[in-house]
């Protein structure tokens, strides 16, 4: 009876301001019953950490069309320092093949290239979100 929707932060870091893609994804996730915190583009990493913490999100989706994904490794390490290692990070948009490895090594859970289906995105975010939530419950049966 007491299930709670997965919470996802959909955001853009870096300089690129095209946010159509992230809007579409936000709508997908909402239509699948998730709660999406949506931000305008040009967020700093500091902002993303603060948003993830205050909104207690389970997944962060970063959209990147140009070079924004290059800052994602910084985001990953800041998340760890902020004790938010349970939050899963996915990157959507255009990431050159030879840079996937670098993102995966940094701890990114999934990269969605152009043309990824709605079903695939929803399925993956649901799994990651459920995992993050479960981790928190296991770790923090605290109140």
């Amino acid at each position, binding site marked *: *009876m*007491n*299930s*709670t*929707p997965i*919470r996802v932060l959909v955001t853009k870091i870096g300089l690129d301001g095209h946010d159509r893609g992230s809007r579409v994804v*936000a*709508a997908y*996730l*909402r*239509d*699948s*019953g*998730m*709660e*999406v*915190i*949506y*931000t*305008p583009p040009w*967020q*700093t990493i*500091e*902002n993303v950490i*603060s*948003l993830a*913490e*205050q*909104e*207690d999100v389970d997944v962060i989706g970063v959209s990147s069309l140009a070079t924004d994904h290059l800052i994602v490794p910084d985001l990953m390490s800041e998340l760890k320092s*902020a*004790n*938010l290692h349970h939050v899963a990070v996915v990157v959507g948009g255009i990431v050159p093949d030879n840079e996937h490895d670098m993102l995966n090594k940094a701890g990114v859970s999934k990269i969605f290239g152009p043309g990824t289906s709605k079903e695939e995105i929803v399925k993956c975010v649901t799994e990651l979100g459920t995992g993050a939530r479960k981790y*928190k419950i296991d770790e*923090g*049966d*605290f*109140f």
Partner: protein
Amino acid sequence: MIDNDHNSQNKKTTLKKLLSGDVALLARAITLLETGGTKADNLAYKISANAGEALVIGFTGTPGSGKSSLINCLVKLLRDQGEKVAVLAVDPSSPLSGGAVLGDRTRMGEHTSDRNVFIRSVAARGHLGGLSIAIPSIIDVVDAAGWPIIILETVGTGQSETEIMELADIKVVVNAPGLGDDIQAIKAGVLEIGDVLVVNKCDQPLSDSLVQQLKSMLELRSSEKKNIPIIATSATEDIGIQELDKTIKNISLNLGNEYKAIRQANRLKGNLWRKTEQLFRYRLKEINSKKIEDILHQLRNGIISNGDAAEIILNLCVDKE
């Protein structure tokens, strides 16, 4: 679950950390309260003793009137004065999927990394009245975690949002010109609950005439409700925010000390009512379907009235088999 010494010691430390202002814990406590269940009830119970100090300022009004933008300006002003502020922004959930895109805080982006501002987006999750069912306990936990000012933004349904009345110490009703028929705003019950009426977007044409309409509407009221302040603001041009702040401060000064006790009693009662309703709805679902069939049968055949039937159902909810 084994509640051994170690475990309960852990819980005590966690609660202490929460009460001393750990933001990550506060965020997770809110999620727990939203989820509901026994653990949430326990948490709500444990923190209630530490709540009741914060000033709660409620913003309600027509969708798109500028509530979030105004809150952003007010937060900026309060920060300039050195205050710590928390914002709880409620947005509607989709009735179909249960999901939501929570967008209020996009208007408050400049405060995102300020550690003295806590913003939380809350989905209404199907609760009527413009607030989520967990909001009362969420207010309590934010309060207990040491946030002295809590600004609450409700879903701008424009319908009578009575719940905000009992939760907010000061109710600000936001209107704006050009949002459909002006008379609509006047018809809807929300204006009745305002301690302050704001006409936002005063940079737009027709805002003067909206101010006039509201004034003449107040004229018709009984004398003690006549003097509600009407403030023209522009969140985008930064007009009238100081006056709004001053007005809110004046009202809060006049609330007096005995007021806190009354408010806390009202909240307690409201929480009890909501919990009882929830329990009642739950019990309704538990009633043996054969018994319901039987009652429906009698109803169809005119043996009992609708009112009688409801009375029988109510009794079934009380004496559980």
